[in-house]
């Protein structure tokens, strides 16, 4: 049993990792078939990962309601949202059409499921992120102070790009458009490139460690 619990996952990771690394260098059709099948498998397993994410949220709020923790009423609202969306998405059209799942439109006409999506989910998510517009403004006011050389550089680059990316800035000071493009294409590109190289070295090192079983944190969960 210990082999199954401890060693088997490591063996699987090792074998899968080595095979799919080497696959890249092998153009033979057999290796291509392996790649096709492998990617399809991951695609299907991805579906279950989706379930995993959803059930954990379900669980957390169920506990909250059960124990009547502070704010459990909001958890009820959350459940209400789930149930209504599910009911509308799965059953309303199941009765009417031949499709098994929820479609936002059928033959160009919006369905009830599409209505929920368009008039609740879209504005809610959109607004949640739109709030950041206000916070970025107050962050700029609070913290964009030329306290040091570094801060001054950051602030100058930010102000130039803010001017160079909008018509009014380019209209008042046409040169900001050119400077913005230069900052983005040259200065910014070089920094991002260095970060990309650094991060990729880190990611490759991590992947190698995972394949060789030196890094096992991803296995997480599952008490032994």
């Amino acid at each position, binding site marked *: 049993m210990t082999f199954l619990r401890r060693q088997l996952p490591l063996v699987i990771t090792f074998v899968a990792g080595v095979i799919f*690394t080497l696959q*890249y*260098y*092998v*153009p*033979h*059709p*057999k290796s*291509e078939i392996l790649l096709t099948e492998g990617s399809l498998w991951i695609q299907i397993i991805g579906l279950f990962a989706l379930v995993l994410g959803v059930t*954990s*949220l379900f669980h*957390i709020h169920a506990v909250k309601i059960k124990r009547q923790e502070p704010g459990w009423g909001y958890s009820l609202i959350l459940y209400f949202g789930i149930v209504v969306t599910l009911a509308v998405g799965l059953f309303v059209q199941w009765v009417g059409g031949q499709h098994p799942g929820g479609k936002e439109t059928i033959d160009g006409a919006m369905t009830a499921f599409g209505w929920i999506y368009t008039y609740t989910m879209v504005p809610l998510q959109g607004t*949640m*992120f739109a*709030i*950041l517009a206000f*916070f*970025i403004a*107050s*962050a*700029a006011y*609070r*913290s*964009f102070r030329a306290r040091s050389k570094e801060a001054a550089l*950051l602030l100058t680059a930010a102000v130039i790009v803010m001017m160079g990316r909008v018509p009014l800035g380019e209209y008042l000071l046409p040169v900001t458009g050119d400077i913005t493009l230069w900052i983005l294409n040259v200065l910014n590109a070089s920094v*991002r490139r260095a*970060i990309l*190289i*650094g*991060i990729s*070295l*880190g990611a*490759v*090192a*991590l992947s*190698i*460690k995972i394949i*060789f079983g*030196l*890094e096992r*944190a*991803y296995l*997480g*969960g599952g008490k032994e």
Partner: protein
Amino acid sequence: MTAVIPGRTLSGVCLPWVMLLLWSLPLSAQAQDLLPAPEQVQVFDTPNDAGQSLTLLWADSLRDGPGVRYQILIAPVADARATAPAVDPAAMEIVAEIPSDSHYVRDRSWPWWTHPAPPAFHRYVINSRSGLELMNDTPYVVTVAAVTGEIRTFGPAIQAVPEPNWVNWNQMNNLLLLLAFGAGVFGSIRTAKRREIFLRRIPGLDAVDEAIGRATELGKPILYLTGAGDMGEPSTIAAAVILGRVSKRVAMYETELIVPHRDPIVMVVCQEITKQSYLEAGKADIFKEDSNFFITTDQFSYTAAVDGIMLRRKPAANFFMGSYFAESLLLTETGASTGAIQIAGTDSDHQLPFFVTTCDYTLIGEELYAASAYLSREPVQVGTLRGQDLGKAVILGVLALGTGLATIGLILDAQWPALLLDLFRDYK
């Protein structure tokens, strides 16, 4: 790189040349005077691919110009054993007709170890497509003809067999670098297990101690966030390690610690780490189980709740370690408004600008990993960091040396710099 050359010689050079010597077609003397036939023709299986493809190479010629075109012709060989297939080139199927000043070897870049022919040679790749299916392991006769007006002169017809290949030699530098880097990382980890490896001190860690000191002076709590990631992300692991250090200090000073989580598993791990730190500091008696607690996995509910904690409890120091998304600004802005010292550490590069502007100190990207390796002194972590440094050192060297070589190469019009430069290029 010696291992590379057989592949090239086998399919790329020897075979076509043997074919060329074996057989060629007589041509009418008159046509040849007007329009010399294509010379040095080579036909072979396209190397480094999945098969169903043949490559044709032939020398450039003085006749190449606007008036002349090339025809590529192909015919299947009925009997594979025949060494000299009796095919009339005029009866072969025309695959393509191309202008004579196109399709050069130089149109595509090759590393020196698979370079098929001089750059000025013509190159045409016959691929399987609708209307023309090339079968693997089936011989074909291929030739090229020069055409101008009514005159057509044929090069030698050569037999070749398309086949799938097991190795893409063009990408061997990729594999080589992978192996070298892997060896570097493992070597460093081994070294780290045997002896102390030098890591420079990360200035951010001083800021951490200072912040804890100030919170103690003020008698206010410390807020520590571990980010949005799960235990599989390196940034979360680093955040947990740094939490160990922070909680030890906090225990010594008997300051209050608040650690709200977004991932239940991370919470459990961090609870253990915190408990251990209190034990090590000899303050197990004041350890509180509920200093680590879980809020919710949802981005904005979590953010709103943490913002609420900041506004009510007014912590003297806020730590933001791990990976963050759009919520970063909502957190740090609220934190700043309460006047707390804020220290961040993240590899989420999209959010770095906000941490850098709104926090007093930020561990940028890899600095977070370095800080955690510095603190934990765990050989695997330290060794990996050292291995990555080796990789960076090599890249730095290649960038400096390569730029010099590339410049000299261009000025002198020399090819030899490619011997090094090609090793660090991406080929398909």
